[in-house]
């Protein structure tokens, strides 16, 4: 990671020496560099999660194979799910939150730069905490939703689920801290004139996502605390013999879990909503409706959790309520799909790789959405739940939706981040391999599922009518792996040798394209004053924004921010020359994160039976954390 230097060709001013080297990455509080850290780390985990998937699929290529043992397989799918959800898609979204939100709203940084660094380090360390045990055969093995009592001390007594409970708790801290940060940033750091209804759609969707995080994560935090106390301190929350109710865990988990899936998809929706208008040369169709439907999805997302529990016997009334509520979500989501198509309709379309992926998302997510609606009907879902049909559903929305959207975002923003283009030719290969591989992998799962194949089985018998479909899925997975490697090659080689990109390589409408690529540390030398949703088109292609309301911020606000009309910034000067105060780099957020990690590790030691050592570790970790925190809070920001 340290080798990632910002390419120097793009500007006259080379990054100052303090901006390179490991130490600078450990201490950075620049939202862009933190975004890059998120990006690299999450891509690394994508590879890890992909390798886990590859092993899973290899084991299932044929009936009664024995590539991995049952126990290993169970760890693999648990870690695959956990990795992809918490260590890949959420952090990839976070990479974009970090990099883009301040740029899109015309801010110089996030509201709390050091808290931002803290979020990243908690994620990075928490990711290691939950992943490394797999090398010792101790990885979590209770499934990504860790149903009690299998995840509790009585039936899951080993260390495996300890790492899961604690790891998720750590990752939750990271997500929550980031969410408070971005909520404040979006509310309070928008450039003059940028009303809520002028924010770029990606920022809008991110805004909704932050609220989902703020509301959903406390619930799993509570559920995990109960499990953690059961496992380490002998409480009885999920202890069957004491009358504990396994359904409590399920309800709490899914109150979190369902909003979580929208946490995964909405940022991708946002990215696609940036890509499509740009390459259609047309504003986003139905902007207001798009924003409101995002809010609707988020809101309704809190009222449908029990559709994951149609088989537990909740009774007809609850089944009906949750079923109908679930179906309702199809409506705002459909609105988004149709508005995207309408955005392209009548446009002047260009198909760089980012656009291909964006269109791919529309096509593929629809499939996953429709199978989702099929799940929402309990009598029918009882034949689908816990089969490969569900696996098909959620990979279409997650891989065909979230991952495709994120790839669209990576191709779109790569020039902004690095100052260079990614290769379109290789990108095209990547897209098509990915597109075919994805359908080859996941489409047959609809069949294996409806033909009776349960999920989470490490092996299956011959003659069940599943062989062909499984072989197809496995073949597709190898294709996806090749696609992934093609992408990796494209990514790294373009970073070194890609064609230089200017401020605004795509002719895009929003503020981030008005500044140099890569942006200077202070982002905007002068804060722009925004008069409409598409400031860059106002500047360069005013015909595209004619029908949209324009207005100017009041003079006082402009004066406050020293704002100037939107313009392209091409000069690159240092913050000092411009007199822009920048936050100091600091190691303290990293140290606080480390303290948290040590604190939690103490519990593992406790489980191992070394009481004194455990206490020492926990107290030491806590003291280290609190000390670093005080040091952080009492040192000036800039």
């Amino acid at each position, binding site marked *: 990671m340290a080798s990632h230097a910002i390419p120097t060709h793009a500007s006259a001013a080379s990054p100052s020496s303090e901006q390179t080297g490991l130490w600078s990455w450990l201490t950075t509080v620049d939202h862009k560099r933190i975004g890059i850290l998120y990006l690299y780390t999450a891509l690394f985990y994508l590879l890890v999660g992909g390798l886990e998937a590859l092993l899973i699929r290899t084991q299932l290529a044929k009936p009664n194979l024995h590539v991995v*043992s*049952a126990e290993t397989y169970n760890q693999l799918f648990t870690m695959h799910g956990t990795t992809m959800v918490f260590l890949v898609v959420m952090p990839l979204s976070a990479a974009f939150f970090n990099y883009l939100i301040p740029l899109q709203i015309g801010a110089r940084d996030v509201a709390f730069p050091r808290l931002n660094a803290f979020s990243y380090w908690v994620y990075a360390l928490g990711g290691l905490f939950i992943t490394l045990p797999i090398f010792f055969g101790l990885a979590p093995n209770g499934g990504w939703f860790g149903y009690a009592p299998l995840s509790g001390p009585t039936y899951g007594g080993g260390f495996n689920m300890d790492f899961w409970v604690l790891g998720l708790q750590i990752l939750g801290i990271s997500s929550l801290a980031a969410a408070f940060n971005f909520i404040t940033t979006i509310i309070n750091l928008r450039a003059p004139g940028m009303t809520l209804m002028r924010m770029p759609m990606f920022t809008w969707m991110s805004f909704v996502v932050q609220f989902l995080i703020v509301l959903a994560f406390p619930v799993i935090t509570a559920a995990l605390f109960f499990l953690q106390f059961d496992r380490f301190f002998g409480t009885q929350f999920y202890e069957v013999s004491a009358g504990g109710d396994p359904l409590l865990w399920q309800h709490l988990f899914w109150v979190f879990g369902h909003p979580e899936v929208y946490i995964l998809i909405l940022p991708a929706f946002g990215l696609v909503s940036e890509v499509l208008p740009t390459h*259609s040369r047309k504003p986003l169709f139905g902007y207001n409706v798009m924003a409101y439907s995002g809010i609707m999805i988020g809101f309704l997302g809190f009222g449908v959790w029990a559709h994951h529990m149609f088989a537990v016997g909740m009774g007809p009334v609850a089944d009906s309520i949750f079923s109908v509520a679930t179906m309702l979500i199809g409506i705002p989501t459909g609105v988004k799909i149709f508005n995207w198509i309408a955005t*392209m309709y009548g446009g002047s*379309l260009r198909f760089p790789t980012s656009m291909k992926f964006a269109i791919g998302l529309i*096509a593929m997510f629809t499939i996953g959405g429709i199978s989702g609606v099929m799940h929402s009907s309990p009598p*029918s879902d009882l034949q689908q739940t816990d089969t490969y049909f569900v696996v098909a559903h959620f990979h279409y929305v997650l891989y065909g939706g979230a991952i495709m959207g994120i790839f669209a975002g990576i191709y779109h923003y790569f020039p902004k981040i690095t100052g260079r283009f990614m290769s379109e030719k290789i990108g095209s290969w990547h897209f098509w391999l990915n597109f075919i591989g994805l*359908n080859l992998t996941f489409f047959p799962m*609809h069949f294996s599922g409806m033909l*009776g194949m349960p999920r989470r089985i490490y092996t299956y018998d011959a003659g069940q009518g599943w062989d062909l479909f499984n072989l197809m899925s496995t073949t597709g997975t190898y294709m996806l792996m090749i696609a992934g490697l093609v992408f990796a090659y494209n990514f790294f080689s373009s970073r070194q040798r890609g064609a230089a990109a200017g401020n605004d390589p795509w002719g895009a409408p929003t503020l981030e394209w008005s500044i140099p690529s890569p942006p200077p540390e202070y982002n905007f030398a002068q804060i722009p004053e925004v008069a409409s949703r598409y400031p860059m088109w106002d500047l360069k292609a005013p015909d595209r924004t004619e029908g949209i309301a324009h207005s100017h911020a009041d003079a006082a606000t402009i004066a406050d921010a020293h704002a100037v009309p939107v313009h392209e910034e091409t000069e690159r000067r240092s913050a000092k020359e411009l007199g822009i105060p920048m936050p100091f780099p600091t190691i303290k957020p990293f140290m606080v994160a480390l303290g948290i990690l040590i604190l939690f590790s103490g519990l593992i030691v406790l489980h191992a039976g070394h009481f004194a050592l455990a206490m020492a570790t926990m107290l030491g970790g806590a003291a280290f954390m609190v000390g670093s925190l005080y040091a952080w809070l009492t040192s000036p920001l800039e």
Partner: protein
Amino acid sequence: MLKLHLRRFAPAAALAVALLVLAACGGEYPNSTFSRHTELNEGAVFLWDRMMLLGTIVFVIVEVLLVYTIFKFRRREGGPGPRQIHGNAALEITWTAIPALILVFIAVPTVRTIFENQRKAPAEALQVEVIGHQWWWEFRYPQYGIVTANELYLPIGKTVNFSLQTRDVLHSFWVPQLGGKRDLIANKVNHIWFTPSASMEPTALNGACVEYCGASHANMRFRTFTVTPAEFERWAAHQKTVAMGSPAAIAAAAAADSAAKAAAKSPVVRAASVVPAVALAPHTDSSSAPEAWVFPAEKIAAYAWPQTPLPATKFDEALLASGDAATGRALLTNPANLGKAPCLTCHVIKGETNYASDDNAKGPNLTHVGSRHTFGAGLYRLDAKSLALWIKNAPAMKPGSQMPTFGAGEYNPAIKAAVPAAAGLDDKQIADIVAYLRSLK
């Protein structure tokens, strides 16, 4: 650009083709959820069909619009610039209202079906208690006083009301051909009921545990035999007695008394109450003894025969032919052998002196194990060799199995060491036990 065109439609085409294939040769898909064997699944399939139709329409509309747009509005050099439209209220309302309408057509029958399925089962229904264990199934017929494992018999044309419980973690009960699943949840009794339709052929169906339950979740399967009501009664009448033809039965025959006979015939015996089975009389007198009816092996289709490969555990197979049931029985039942063959501390065999009762037995009831076609939760065919290997080293055949390793010198994962030669069973002893178990028809 034609290739793009084709690929967009490939999934739809594949779907259509595969559905045709499905309709044509259902036999190839033995666990298909599209069967119409029960009213429960009729409802599910009806909803599925409707959603499939509406879903396909939505899918086609979206993808056609998308593909059309992509082709129609490609950027052309010198072509006209885009028409700048930013929104349209009428359109927004349309594509909100139409999906809402579609959903009404799904929601209404959904809710109706939910309430239909979850009515109380008819009072005269056959009651079956399903009890989940890590990783096998216990089935009880309280109206008959039968406790059995891993093989479920259901009479055609009769409503069956299942009550579902678990002894440990969560499991889920599912026979894909008969209808939707229901979870087994600790501290809760769940219910599901359906009627195998009267027009159904007697047949063997696969079932599975579909809630992740630990190491051998994949190996927690079972067989369902749907049989005619007459066959069911014959099977049941036999199952509630002790095994015919076993050494125990022969030994006890002399002591049979009529009072016990009456007890055995009383139709409603709680499963638990049959544990001290010594009171039950064996039926040696062919006139009154129920015939030992089980689902005929030759009628079991290939898909219902397990094909799990056997492990590499060595066994002197020559011994199997000469296994002696009476010796085997002595090994199991003589308290002196409890250290070596503690089988009856975990298993119940009606008619023998048991150390466990049906309510606390850790393993499956073995009273009629010889009359089963499969064992180990549907994982293996019940033949002499598989059984012998199982007794020798069950965990090697089923990861995590709670049945310990008994073979002398075999590696026992529970104690992470080999079973000492003196403490374990040798191949000869195992062969005798196998012979005895197989005699438990």
